[in-house]
């Protein structure tokens, strides 16, 4: 069979093969379509935009839950979370021991410690290598120090707190850095 024969068959099919759709097909299809648009629009306007946000919220919730289980609510989470941790520490001292009041050491005691210190004394501490300071909720400052130096810093801060005192202080949350 030659290429010409192929073309001949194709030409004949092209000329004879098309069949027009029944006249009422479009009408029936569009009747169905028009019966549906309200449902379509409502689905798109309310559910569709919410899906990414719902997914992000679920992921965030799972992350927060996982972090709280792993780190006991501390660690390198955001400053707001740290402020929240400080607030919890104020209210739940058995779970978050405050070395300035309970002097015993140990792993739990290293979790965090809260002090009330003059601002000037804090500036000297934050410039030390490996120490990071950032603000937290309710005007508190979080000091993240290397874990190996946590006890040292706790003692120094406690000493400053006992030495100074007064009204012009800010709350300092001491935590081991990760």
């Amino acid at each position, binding site marked *: 069979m030659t290429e010409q024969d192929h073309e001949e068959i194709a030409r004949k099919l092209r*000329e004879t093969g098309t069949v027009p759709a029944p006249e009422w097909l479009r009408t029936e299809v569009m009747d169905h379509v028009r019966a549906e648009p309200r449902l379509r629009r409502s689905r798109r306007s309310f559910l569709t935009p919410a899906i990414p946000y719902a997914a992000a919220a679920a992921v965030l919730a799972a992350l927060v839950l996982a972090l709280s289980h792993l780190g006991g609510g501390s660690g390198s989470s955001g400053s707001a979370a740290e402020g929240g941790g400080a607030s919890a520490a104020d209210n739940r001292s058995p779970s978050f021991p405050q070395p300035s009041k309970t002097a015993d050491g140990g792993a739990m005691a290293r979790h965090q410690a809260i002090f009330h210190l003059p601002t000037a004394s804090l500036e000297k501490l934050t410039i030390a290598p490996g120490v990071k300071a950032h603000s937290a909720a309710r005007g508190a400052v979080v000091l993240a120090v290397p874990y190996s130096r946590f006890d040292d810093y706790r003692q120094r801060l406690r000493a400053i707190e006992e030495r100074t005192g007064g009204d012009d202080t800010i709350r300092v949350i001491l935590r081991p850095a990760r």
Partner: protein
Amino acid sequence: MQHAIALPLPRGTRLAPYHDPVQIGSDEALARRAARGDERAFEELVVRHQDKLYTLALRVTLSEADAYDCVQEGLIAAWRALPRFRGDARFSTWMYRIVVRKAYDALDRRRRAPEPVEELHAVAPEAQPEARLDLIAALEGLEPDFRVVAVACDILGMSMEQAGAMLEVPTGTVKSRLHRAREQLAQALEPDRTG
């Protein structure tokens, strides 16, 4: 072609009963509007493609009733799925794929549960010469996989790439099936030629 026609319409012209800018634009532009709920844009797409879709379904199922159902269900399914149409393929290819799947489903249903259906016998547009009816009858004698390729490429004028995308087979498969389909059509018509 018919999309560029302006008023007045000649009698018998199959055109939507409106003449606004929605008729101007590519299928993809209309599809985007339809995806946002624009029924008139979708209606224009229906007008543009209904004959080809019906031809495709009819030549595959060989049943006017099945073809009608396939096209109707396919178009409604396309309307529902339009928001998920990402434009990876041409809109026409995507829509034909929906209809051709339904046509194959209809064939499968008939194979599993044979029931009396009105069979199509060499339906050709208007009055056609005998030889052309023979060609359509020969087309109906092909296996569906070969028939659909001949319909797509030779009757609907698709490229082999488009037919492959519609049928979800490689272009090489389309090419070989088309070649064999034409050969079988030629053989089927041969006795008439010699006789």
